């Protein structure tokens, strides 16, 4: 397309893209953060273990009443719970739930936030005023209340998609965390829409939707990627918290939060049951936070990278 060829203005991220390949540049800055590399390592291990959970010999939901509350051993690396289920198996499958919910929730928030913030920033005027007041309104709701009520609401709608609670909890978290994305996208769009390549694209006859999605959104990507990365960690914390309270993923489907909820009833008698699920949440969240922090540096176009 002609309008794409015209997009040569030195908008920071795109400009660096021309010189050395964007990924290469981002990687060069990213790898200067040792903790972020550790984070990538931890997250890869957790992700791989969750994906290949089926290779692990125990089933997360099979009950064995003869072997309840076994301490960690060679056979059961994390012990067994009050129904004799293998905790390691539950943690592995729970990891799937946590990661999927985290990513899906963030994707939902991105779509809603980018649509609202994008339209507000692009069209301005009344649409901007209305949509931003809506964002303010959403921010003045007590969020935990909203989360709990929405999770009740979706849990009892009986749509097949929402069974087991995974999709519903992801949707609920997405619905309550799009506001920062909206503000971010609006702010970027306000700046980008004044650039010449947008005028050029419009002159070439590109539609509003095409300009927003193909020309403006990629140029607003830097801060969005950082926000989305940290948002995944946030969503995982929220999901595990809701599940811990009993409002999130419903047993017997394991999630790190509801494993912990189950374990805390026997906290002082069988402490290992409580240690592992929380440790997994902690490791995942800290790994993602370190990655997000490094990405913030690597994707910041005004960030000068020491010696080059």
């Amino acid at each position: 397309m002609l309008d794409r060829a015209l997009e040569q203005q030195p908008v920071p991220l795109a400009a660096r893209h021309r010189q050395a390949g964007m990924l290469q540049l981002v990687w060069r800055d990213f790898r200067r953060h040792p903790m972020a590399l550790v984070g990538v390592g931890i997250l890869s291990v957790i992700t791989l273990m969750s994906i290949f959970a089926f290779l692990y010999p125990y089933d997360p939901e099979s009950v064995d009443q003869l072997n309840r509350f076994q301490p960690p051993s060679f056979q059961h690396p994390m012990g067994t719970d009050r129904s004799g289920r293998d905790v390691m198996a539950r943690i592995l499958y729970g990891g799937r739930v946590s990661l999927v919910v985290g990513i899906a929730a963030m994707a939902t928030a991105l779509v809603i936030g980018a649509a609202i913030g994008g339209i507000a920033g692009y069209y301005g005027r009344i649409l901007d005023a209305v949509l931003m007041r809506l964002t303010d309104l959403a921010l003045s709701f007590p969020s935990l209340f909203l989360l709990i009520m929405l999770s009740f609401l979706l849990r009892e709608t009986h749509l097949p998609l929402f069974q087991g609670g995974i999709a519903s909890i992801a949707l609920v978290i997405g619905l309550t965390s799009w506001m920062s994305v909206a503000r971010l996208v609006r702010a970027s769009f306000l700046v980008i829409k004044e650039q010449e390549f947008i005028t050029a694209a419009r002159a070439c006859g590109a539609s509003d939707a095409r300009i927003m999605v193909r020309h403006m959104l990629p140029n607003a990507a830097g801060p969005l990627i950082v926000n989305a990365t940290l948002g995944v960690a946030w969503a995982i914390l929220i999901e595990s918290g809701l599940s811990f309270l009993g409002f999130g993923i419903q047993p017997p489907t394991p999630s790190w939060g509801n494993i912990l909820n189950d374990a805390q009833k026997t906290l002082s008698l069988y402490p290992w049951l409580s240690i592992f699920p929380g440790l997994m949440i902690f490791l995942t969240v800290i790994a993602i936070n370190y990655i997000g922090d490094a990405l913030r540096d690597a994707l910041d176009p005004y960030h000068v990278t020491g010696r080059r």
Partner: protein
Amino acid sequence: MTRYIVIRLLQAIPLLFLVSAAVFALIHLVPGGPMGVYGKNPNLSAEDLARLEEKLGLNQPLYVQYLNWLTKVIRGDFGYSYDTKRPVLDEIADRLPATVYLMGATFVFVLAIAIPVGALSAARQYSWVDVLVSTLTFAGQAIPVFWLGLMLILLFYGWARNPFTGEPLLPARGMSTLGAPFSIGDYLKHLILPMLTLGVGWISWYSRYLRSSMLDVLHQAYIQTARAKGLAERTVLTRHALKNAAIPLVTIVALDLPTIVNGALYTEIIFSWPGMGQLFFRAAVRRDYPILMAMTMLSSVMIILANLLADVAYAYLDPRVRYERSST
């Protein structure tokens, strides 16, 4: 400034109406409301349930229910808890002191640690202190508060013993020992673990925030001027840098003030703390609509006031910010 505050407060009124209508609708949209909870009681016949529904007004159209609620609330009547049959305001008044006590103490504790830690790690950027602080605060932000609470209980209640009495080192349930005569020491001992649980994440967030705003300030010209005048580094840091770096922190602190009233859901549940968080949890599980509505309204009012306070404090502390002429 007075004019600005009055305008902002007037703007808050329609916002509160909107929030209350939206929350009311949301609560009542949820299937299996209080009637679902009552329905599980085998002692209630179908007629009993119908009479109860009639008495609570739950069989009326939604907008009638909302208008009924609204007219009463404007007269200061928040109704009765479905669960305990006591006035909602009494329930809240019972719970509020415990929450204000816990959150107030935690707030002081958090600020007392976060400000020096944040300032120190900025002043010694890239030193071992800074690296240590940065590692700990990263961990503090990633640790789930409910797990931290459980691990602290495990450590200080389950494992560590008082060497003289052999009892657990710190209590892990409630606000004071049941049945024991009042003693300040007993209250303080019960406060330690919940306060730590709540404080860790908060300290991490505040001190990271202060560190970065302090680093911004330290690069300003007036800091160089202060140093060039030959002032002691200590004076430069506390009188010139910290004072200015704390301004954005004041805004953040003001925005966090509503939590003093909302309570801490996870911490209160884990430590059986008789506060607002527990009240909210019970009301959510039991679908106690009047309590839920009152608590959400209280918390929305607090959020709005806190936002206003943050803006006013910002204008007061930073003379460059003025609201009078410009639009909000």
